[in-house]
């Protein structure tokens, strides 16, 4: 059977009774078995759980008929969770040896919400340990390979989730975006990556990295699915006090997109910047006004990020003492140690004012830049990664070089605004290219609207890598 590529086509197939969900799970598992040895998307496969759920939903479908799709908006959509999402009874490792054999006693809010909406968990995906990285190479479970060209990284930190969607091992996948960890791997693997507004989606039951920056997003093949999933994941759960039920206003009137001149700087590869400009033209041809804007403090974003983020990392990872669960702190890998120590340094007596406090002040300057820009435009178009996927091992030995891969993504986390990474084409090496749309807080509907407009204008077809 052909595995459907979108939730719409899945539901069409199910209505026509082309296959059962048990058969669908079989097909996914066969595909994973055939190809994931090389790609290494998954740390754990939850086949027993998936078959059990598929059987339950197959009976619901029989019983309720078409009403089942009302009750379960994501009925049968197979999801791979980044291994930072707690799944009751299914091992959750954060891709670190510290949690190598940790089995959670409860599930995270997003995991529960998706399950209630009819999604089926097929497994837990590889990532940079504790979500620290931009290539997937910091995993204690081995790196993942980019499905489009296996000599290249898939990006990170949500490496396996991006690979899973690009390889058609799942319909969609969850991820966390603290400095670009959904948008960047989506960009490098040619799938849609969504980072919500800070405070739109609960982080309860997701292993924390940097709490003032963390957001829970997802990977899909089309914008429409991204929107459908966000409709399920968003909203208050009473367990993450940053989350409030917000209005997500629909776009109206004539839209304007800003092109920030500071995002087209030296160091960005020409094919990346050209592709973003070409994509901006697509919007212009659709009647959307383009406007050059300025975000002058963008140049400080990486420095602000690499002070605040490790500071919060050092605090969040202090709970891993090996007493109540997990192994001892000796099991932390290099990158976690580096960030814990960096964070401890910038928070320590004598350095706090110079680094941490200063960074929180510059953070405000970056937020003000965006606020000013969004008075003039409804969204911003920008590159995601400064280069297409890079080769495995290319940046692994130089942490600072790896950190600079986040240069265009971290500002959205610093300001807490939503971002949508959209694939647009491929370069000569068959590596994906794309762009991101950023909007003011809670402007998700505008981003989805623009994303769908782009797909329609370019007759975009969902793609899967040939493995």
């Amino acid at each position: 059977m052909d595995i459907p590529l979108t939730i719409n086509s899945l539901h069409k197939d199910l209505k026509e009774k082309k296959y059962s969900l048990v058969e669908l799970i079989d097909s996914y598992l066969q595909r994973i078995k055939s190809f994931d040895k090389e790609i290494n998307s998954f740390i754990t496969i939850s086949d027993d759980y998936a078959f059990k759920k598929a059987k339950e939903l197959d009976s619901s479908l029989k019983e309720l008929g078409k009403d089942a799709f009302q009750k379960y908006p994501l009925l049968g959509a197979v999801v791979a969770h980044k291994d930072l999402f707690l799944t009751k009874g299914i091992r959750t490792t954060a891709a670190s040896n510290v949690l190598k054999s940790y089995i959670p006693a409860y599930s995270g809010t997003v995991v529960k919400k998706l399950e209630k909406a009819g999604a089926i968990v097929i497994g837990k995906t590889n990532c940079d340990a504790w979500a620290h990285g931009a290539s997937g190479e910091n995993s204690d479970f081995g790196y993942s390979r980019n499905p489009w060209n296996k000599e290249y990284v898939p990006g990170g930190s949500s490496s396996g989730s991006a690979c899973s969607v690009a390889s058609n091992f799942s319909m969609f996948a969850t991820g966390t975006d603290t400095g670009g960890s959904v948008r960047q791997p989506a960009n490098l693997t040619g799938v849609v990556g969504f980072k919500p507004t800070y405070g739109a989606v609960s982080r309860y039951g997701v292993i924390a990295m940097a709490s003032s920056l963390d957001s829970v997003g997802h990977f899909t093949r089309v914008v429409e699915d991204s929107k459908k999933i966000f409709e399920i994941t968003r909203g208050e759960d009473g367990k993450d006090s940053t989350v409030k039920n917000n209005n997500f206003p629909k776009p109206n009137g004539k839209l304007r997109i800003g092109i920030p001149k500071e995002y087209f700087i030296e160091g960005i590869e020409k094919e990346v910047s050209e592709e973003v400009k070409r994509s901006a033209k697509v919007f212009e041809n659709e009647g959307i006004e383009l406007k050059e804007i300025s975000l002058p403090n963008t140049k400080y974003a990486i420095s602000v990020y690499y002070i605040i983020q490790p500071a919060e990392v050092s605090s969040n990872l202090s709970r891993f003492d090996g007493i109540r669960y997990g192994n001892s702190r000796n099991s932390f890998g290099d990158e976690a140690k580096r960030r814990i120590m960096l964070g401890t340094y910038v928070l320590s007596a004598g350095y706090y004012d110079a680094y941490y406090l200063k960074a929180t002040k510059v953070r405000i300057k970056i937020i003000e830049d965006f606020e000013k820009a969004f008075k003039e435009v409804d969204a911003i178009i920008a590159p995601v990664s400064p280069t297409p996927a890079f080769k495995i091992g290319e940046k692994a030995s130089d942490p600072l070089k790896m950190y600079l891969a986040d240069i265009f993504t971290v500002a959205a986390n610093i300001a807490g605004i939503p971002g949508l990474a959209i694939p647009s084409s491929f370069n000569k090496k068959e590596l994906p290219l794309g762009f991101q749309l950023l909007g003011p807080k809670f402007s998700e509907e505008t981003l989805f609207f623009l994303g769908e407009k782009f797909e329609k204008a370019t007759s975009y077809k969902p793609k899967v890598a040939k493995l």
Partner: protein
Amino acid sequence: MTNITKQQIIHIAKLAKLKVSEKEIAKFQEQLSNIIEYVSELDKADTKNVKPISQITGLLDTKREDLINKKDCLTLEEALSGTENTHNGYFKVSAILEK
């Protein structure tokens, strides 16, 4: 170049409860110095009249009623399920006081 000393690395590692080998000390000393050197560019940013922030939601004092929801509680067995080092329903920890 901003120099973090070997002594500082040892001190930070101690604060963070991390064991680091001699080799790691040398490696982290160089890498952390490089990173700190880079982020020190923030000195150039003018933040004269800016107040620092620690969170960006604008929300204040999110509260809930002080009620126990049994559905959200772990059983004793579940709470202890992450470790084998238990004793009579408690977590076992190393002694911190001497007799």
